[in-house]
């Protein structure tokens, strides 16, 4: 058992798969010799060489196209698009090329690749290097969307994503890269589409993703210790596939639902889950489902402004407390 950072876990997960399978290759801007702008691919170039860990020009369409063509013909590419905001300059691949190819070709061609993106805010980078794009990705049929919150999940879900036969959007949270957690030795392979109950509770279910997970856990501790409210916290880990069973089963026990979403409010992932709950678990609810989200605004750069708009521990605590009191 080692204590690893989330950042090191990315490289550990990729390295595990590269050792196992010579078809796994990495491609992206600054990922090789520089080890990545987030240092998440540190060491891969030294270990596997320039043939398998490839620096590219600043050309996102060229990167994703190369990954796709290679994936269609037998390789298992892991492409990095650095800041998740940059997905917008190669959105054709996310929206049209990766997800529709299997369908349009009547199953002839698959696109088994992983696109890694540094997602999310709280790093004071301003509106074009901070946004959470999980909801952009979630709405496209044919993609899978993963967003781990802990180092051990990064390793296991990375392995699962690389082994998956479908295109997987792997959202690494920039503000989690420096966080640490225990990671067992040896091979770790997780399962896509499985949520994790990180804390059990009787009074309310709180769903969270990525950076919002530690905030939801901290809020749950405070709600228990200061207000006697016992919350169950679920880390969704994967938006597609979505583990609705775990969500609905939890709701059957707690009867109250809160989502903590970093994405801007409109069409955030919580809206879909609340819709599912309304359809399938309405009579389990003892009160309205409540979404705690970033408002529908571009992210401000200044630290005090960003702190106000991203869901915080105190906002989660207050929202849950007031909702349960009313």
């Amino acid at each position, binding site marked *: 058992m080692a204590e690893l950072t989330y950042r090191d876990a990315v490289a550990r997960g990729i390295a595990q798969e590269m050792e196992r399978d010579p078809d796994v290759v990495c491609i992206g801007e600054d990922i090789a010799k520089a080890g990545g702008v987030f240092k998440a691919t540190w060491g891969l170039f030294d270990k596997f060489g320039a043939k398998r860990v490839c620096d590219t020009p600043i050309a996102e369409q*060229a990167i994703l196209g*190369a990954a*796709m*063509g290679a994936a269609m013909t037998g390789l298992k590419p892991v492409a990095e698009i650095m800041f998740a905001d940059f997905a917008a300059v190669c959105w054709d691949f996310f929206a049209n090329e990766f997800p529709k190819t299997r369908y349009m070709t*009547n199953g002839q061609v698959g696109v088994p690749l992983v696109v890694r993106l540094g997602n999310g805010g709280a790093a004071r980078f301003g509106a074009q290097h901070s946004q959470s794009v999980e909801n952009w990705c979630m709405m496209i*049929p044919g993609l899978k969307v993963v967003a781990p919150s802990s180092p051990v999940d990064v390793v296991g879900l990375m392995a699962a994503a690389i082994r998956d036969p479908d295109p997987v959007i792997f959202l690494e949270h920039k503000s989690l890269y420096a966080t640490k957690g225990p990671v067992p030795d040896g091979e770790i392979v997780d399962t896509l589409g499985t949520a994790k109950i990180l804390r059990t509770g009787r009074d309310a279910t709180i769903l969270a993703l990525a950076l919002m997970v530690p905030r939801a856990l901290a809020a749950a501790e405070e709600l228990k210790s200061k207000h006697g409210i016992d919350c169950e916290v679920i880390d969704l880990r994967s938006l597609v596939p979505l583990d609705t069973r775990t969500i609905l089963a939890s709701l059957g026990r707690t009867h109250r639902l809160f989502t903590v979403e970093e994405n801007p409010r409109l069409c955030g992932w919580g809206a879909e889950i609340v819709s599912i709950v309304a359809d399938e678990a309405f009579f389990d609810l003892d009160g309205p489902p409540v979404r705690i989200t970033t408002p529908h605004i571009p992210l401000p750069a200044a630290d005090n402004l960003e702190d106000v708009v991203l869901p915080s521990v105190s906002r989660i605590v207050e929202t849950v407390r007031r909702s349960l009191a009313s």
Partner: protein
Amino acid sequence: MKSAAPPADIPADTRLHLYHLQVLIREAEQRAYDLFLENLVKGTSHLSLGQEAIAAGFAAAMQPGDLSFCTYRGHAHTLARGVSVEKVLGELMYRDNGLMRGKGGSMHLTSVEHGVMGSYAIIGAHLCIANGAAWRAQYRGEKDVSTCFFGDGTTNIGAFHEALNFAAIWKLPVVFVCENNLYMEYTLNADVTAVEHPAADRAAAYGLERIVIDGNDADAVYNAAKAAYARARAGEGPSMIECLTYRHSGHSRADPAKYRPAGELEKWKKRDPLKIYRARLESLGVAAAKLTEIEQRAKAEVNAATEACRAAPPPPVDIAFTDVYANGGAAWRN
């Protein structure tokens, strides 16, 4: 413009094959147009009438295992790789016998078993994707070459330039083929492009040779293709070939092409690739009866395919929900 190599360079049976492919494409495309008028081909369609020599020349120069990437104007390239007319027309007619059983349509023809790795309807991306297939070949030491076909309109989109730079720096075994038919969609490419030859004049920016050929002469196309494939297989990197041609029909079925100046179509029809090639074969001593037989064989294949497609059922509705994901289904949740 580079002229064709001396006629004797190309074997007689290859020439007959080139003629057959051109005639077959012409017949199939004309039939697709006629079926539109019967409302049996729905949606849209982009024909290669007048551009047959390019598809034929490249396909004839390819080896088995080589990969083709096309745009929405991809019927010709799909047929040229040996996909049956019935499969292509069936897809255009949204019948269950179609190449993708109606799930892709005219703009997305794909047949992996023939090396046709897809037709891409949003221009630009597929140059980058062809690079990826070439990267795999280079990585694994495999000898196949990827060919990416696109129109003159593609040369002004960013992905074109990203792809060329990328292919050049990695010396990928990929051949980029610009079918310059003068018009993007409804607008003359020359009216909106900074250089005379939209593909070839940009080649130097990526360290590539400037190659412009007569795209209506299948021999010229075939020879240029052979040279490019030899380079690619020798590890000498990508090529870009600009083929000058003209589409006899509009951009798509909605386009009567009224923007063309009077006489332009007629001028180009005098340089119809099929006419050029038939005359070439006759001058080389091929009997007229042999050429007529090739033409009749193509007509018969297209007629039989048409009848099979007319008789074929539409796809069963359950396939609307298959093959979104690799497990065969569409489930995004448990």
